[in-house]
């Protein structure tokens, strides 16, 4: 009953999406406000029905209704409640339902809070959202229905993939989807602008908060996923240049470029045509990511060829939306007027440089991910493109980008004074040189690149601080004045500083982890002591335990530093009976931003356990950086200008009138 209701709600949502994608457009053509307002009610109703459908699937999973194929294949009655819920999107069908639910959520938000948008623009934006939604509802209903029943319901389910039975699954996919799908709003705004053939600075101001929201979630989602992989997969890596990871990195890079170009458009009415293109590309890359992950094409081109229904369907959606929007772009973009002019050395110029490097980086990830697939399809040759390729091509792009980064916010609009800015960045430069010298001396001339990279990171962080100091005249004016100025600074200025500092912080973490990571691989018996990076690790105890749906072997290590006990670590190995598979649960001890990491291997016949112990200096900064970036984004989002929206002034007097 619940399954059928959920299925039916999804069909109704499709019907609503079809109305939403046509009627408002007709309304905009006829200039009929009633027809245009249909977009609003259908978007909200769609959210309601998809929400019901999603809740139905959650209920089925919680109730362990194994007569539903999706529940049978991915759940188990003994599974903890949290994983029964998160297991809903731990599989293909459920994750697509989450995808459309979030799409409907964003559509609903635009409908509910888009009151300051011109009526036609809102109608067009929601209609484009309707097209996307309709395509994906069809995809789910035709190829990936999560509500299919089994004729003879089994008594027990097959359980969820053990690697996914982790808190990470509760957070990572929803965050990532909020990012991926959030960019659909920028896309819809871009297509709507192209349809209307009109675009101005106000457009950028409406789009920017939506882009920011998506970007914040994508940033956190990627960082979360990286940390999850780091502790769950058990070999201490945090980024693998895996195609699936690349699929999320590409929209992030394009989205970051979009955020920056939208600033130019909002402030200076320039780069309009480029911003529109970026908005289209960002969501196209999100769609591409969905295709790559969902079609099975990554596992093998042949796997795609043997069961092509899902893959071909998404490929079709991909071609229609990307091809259609780009065709529309080519046809209409020339009609958009170019805006304000600027000298190459200016804030705009710096942001253009940012865009050049970020889009090139994005293209590098794109070609590295798709080249092996394309080559195999065309010539049948198989090649691999992995981490060493990206380290060589993607990495160097960030050196000039990060060197230029601190200059950007300090340059004036239109025409900047490079020498003046360089002078003001002197302090940051000195800080960077000191950092290089210190790291060099401390590591006594080991790897040459690492101290330079740390210096670059310090330059970026110090540059963000200099920006704030300059704007508040700290050290030059009395403290009270500086304080007043600091409070008066727009939140977006603080946001910029935090986000930019976050980039530097992440870089420090990345450099330290990759350069000074130390590891011990060996077999340890009870009471053996191993020394690593100044710590003594003693294997105290090995025990067996029964979990809810697994058995586990726990090893207990006590950690001492200079004779003082600093902690106890209990890594484990879990064996899941239903799937006959096992996971390694690494144990981590944080010391400041550094971590000790232990994961277990096989047990030998003589009772020795293979262990892998890492000391990862400042590794936590890798994820603290993105958190700072997201916090910066949040500050920027709370900026008054974005909250108020562009054309508000006309509304205020009207609201006052009745009181007179």
């Amino acid at each position, binding site marked *: 009953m619940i399954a059928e209701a959920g299925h039916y709600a999804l069909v109704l949502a499709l019907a609503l999406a079809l109305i939403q994608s046509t009627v408002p457009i007709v309304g905009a053509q006829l200039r009929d406000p009633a027809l245009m307002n249909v977009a609003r009610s259908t978007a909200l109703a769609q959210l309601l029905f998809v929400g019901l459908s999603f809740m139905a699937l959650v209920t089925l999973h919680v109730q362990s209704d194994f007569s539903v194929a999706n529940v049978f294949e991915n759940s188990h009655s003994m599974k903890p409640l949290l994983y029964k819920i998160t297991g809903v999107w731990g599989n293909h069908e459920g*994750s697509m339902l989450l995808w459309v639910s979030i799409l409907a959520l964003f559509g609903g938000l635009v409908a509910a809070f888009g009151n300051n948008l011109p009526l036609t623009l809102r109608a067009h934006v929601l209609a484009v959202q309707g097209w996307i939604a309709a395509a994906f509802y069809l995809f789910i209903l035709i190829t990936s229905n999560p509500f299919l029943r089994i004729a003879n319901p089994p008594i027990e389910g097959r359980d969820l993939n*053990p*690697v*996914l039975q982790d808190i*990470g699954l509760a957070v*990572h*996919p929803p965050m990532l*989807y909020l990012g991926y799908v959030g960019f659909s709003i920028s896309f819809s705004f871009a297509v709507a602008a192209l349809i209307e053939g009109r675009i101005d600075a106000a457009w950028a101001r409406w789009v920017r908060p939506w882009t920011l929201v998506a970007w914040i979630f994508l940033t956190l989602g990627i960082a979360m*996923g990286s940390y*999850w*992989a780091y502790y769950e*997969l*058990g*070999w201490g*890596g945090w980024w693998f*240049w*895996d*195609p*699936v*990871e690349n699929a*999320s990195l590409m929209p992030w890079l394009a989205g970051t470029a979009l955020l920056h170009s939208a600033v130019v458009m909002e402030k200076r009415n320039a780069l309009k045509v480029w911003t529109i293109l970026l908005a289209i590309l960002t969501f196209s890359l999100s769609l591409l*990511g969905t295709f790559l*992950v969902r079609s099975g094409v*990554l*596992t093998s081109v042949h796997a795609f060829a043997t069961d092509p229904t899902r893959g071909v369907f998404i490929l079709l959606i991909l071609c229609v939306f990307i091809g259609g929007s780009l065709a529309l772009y080519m046809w209409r973009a020339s009609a958009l007027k170019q805006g304000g*002019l600027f000298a*190459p050395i200016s804030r705009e110029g710096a942001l253009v440089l940012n865009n*050049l490097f970020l*889009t*090139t980086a994005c*293209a*590098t990830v794109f*070609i*590295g991910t798709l*080249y092996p697939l394309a080559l195999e399809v065309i*010539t049948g040759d198989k*090649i*691999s*493109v*992995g*981490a*060493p*390729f990206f380290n*060589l*091509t*993607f990495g160097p*792009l960030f050196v000039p980008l990060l060197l230029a980064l601190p200059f950007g916010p300090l340059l004036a609009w239109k025409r900047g004074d490079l020498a003046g800015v360089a002078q003001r960045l002197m302090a940051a430069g000195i800080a960077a040189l000191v950092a290089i010298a210190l790291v060099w001396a401390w590591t006594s001339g080991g790897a040459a690149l690492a101290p330079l990279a740390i210096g670059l990171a310090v330059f970026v962080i110090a540059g963000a601080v200099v920006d704030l100091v300059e704007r508040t005249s700290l050290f030059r004016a009395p403290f009270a004045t500086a304080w007043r100025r600091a409070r008066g600074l727009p939140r977006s200025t603080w946001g910029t500083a935090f986000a930019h500092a976050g980039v530097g912080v992440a870089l420090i973490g990345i450099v330290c982890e990759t350069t000074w990571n130390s590891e011990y*691989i*060996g077999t340890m018996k009870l009471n053996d002591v191993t020394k690593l990076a100044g710590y003594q690790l003693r294997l105290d105890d090995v025990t067996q335990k029964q979990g809810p749906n697994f058995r586990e072997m726990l090893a207990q290590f006590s950690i001492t530093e200079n004779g003082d006990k600093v902690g106890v670590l209990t890594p484990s*190995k879990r064996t899941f009976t239903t799937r*006959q*598979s*096992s*996971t*390694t649960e690494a144990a981590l001890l944080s010391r400041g931003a550094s971590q000790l990491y232990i*994961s277990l*291997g*096989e047990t030998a016949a003589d009772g020795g356990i*293979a262990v*892998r112990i890492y000391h990862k200096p400042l590794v936590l900064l890798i994820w603290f950086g993105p958190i700072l970036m997201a916090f910066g984004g949040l500050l920027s989002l709370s900026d008054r200008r974005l909250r108020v929206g562009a054309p508000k002034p006309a509304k205020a007097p009207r609201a006052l009138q009745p009181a007179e």
Partner: protein
Amino acid sequence: MKRIIASFVAIALLIGAPALAVQPDEILANPAQESRARELSRELRCMVCQNQSIDDSEAPLARDLRLLVRERITAGDSNSQVMDFLVARYGEFVLLKPRLEWRTLLLWALTPLLLIGGGVALWRNNRRRGAADDDHNNSALKLTADEEARIEQLLAAETADGKSP
């Protein structure tokens, strides 16, 4: 979502052979040779895995390859000889960093081409628009005869207004 697929692959490899990537018994006694082996392992693909190096992978095949790399190193092969040996045996697919050849030219060239091409396009665009701007300014500064006449009129009207009261 990305992690989920990666996890599926990882778990597929774990089934049956739960083990660490590099195992204690593989490690060479000579630390210099061992670190060379680790370095090479990071550039070699575990061919049954999805985009994992043999250094990271837990698959039995990866272990075989790691042992093979160490065998060649102890036999006195240079790094490039080890790589050539593996390519001869398993094909280019085993390299995580493809060699620069005709068929991989676009892969390697795209990044520098885009950067240079993008830079040149921006520079030309800037020059073109700068020139257009100059023309625009010059023509905007010159008033047409009609505009001159209209200004005369307005000025005359204003002086007349000023006098009247």
